[in-house]
């Protein structure tokens, strides 16, 4: 099963419901958000491809990454796959 599909599982502890009302906690997160929006808008990849890229992370990678770290992983993976830049970029 894919690592994101944990709805209903009781193996991950209580959900953190605290909310500091900040959409981003680091400037790089806002930049990742904007880059993803721009790439989706120009059709470089679709939202479905983006989600699929995140879901293909290993369980260890997925749960060890923050929300926007996963976004960045997907963006890098897709841009390499689409030939926008090479693997060693």
């Amino acid at each position, binding site marked *: *099963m*894919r690592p994101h*599909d944990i*709805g*209903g599982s009781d193996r991950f502890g209580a959900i953190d419901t605290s909310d500091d009302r900040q959409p981003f906690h680091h400037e790089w997160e806002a930049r990742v958000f904007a880059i993803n929006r721009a790439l989706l808008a*120009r*059709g470089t*990849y*679709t939202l*479905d*491809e983006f*989600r*699929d890229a995140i*879901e293909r992370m290993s369980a260890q990678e997925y749960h060890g990454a923050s929300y926007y770290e996963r976004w960045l992983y997907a963006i890098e993976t897709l841009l390499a796959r689409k030939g926008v830049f090479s693997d060693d970029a």
Partner: protein
Amino acid sequence: MPSKRCSLERVCFQMTHEIGARIRTRPQRLDGHTRLPHYLERKPGVVRAVLGEYPLPDRSASNPMHAPRTWLYTIEFQGRDVWPDGEGRIYADLFEEYLEAER
């Protein structure tokens, strides 16, 4: 919306399930992208809304240019049907491929 992104072949010309219809979810392709969560597999539910036709994400994820459009429904589940100690109701927007008619 860029028109070059998808070729929109229609899988069905008429939605299969009507509002109020009883359905049961069925598991999708093992380990592929899907919008049916594991905890809602093989569960009985009722159609509460028809949301329109959209490209099936299970196919679009790997082949964005040729994903068939398919009907999307809002399904209502009873909490007790989903988990042993479940309560209340759960609503999930699910594609036609994820559903079969429940007798």
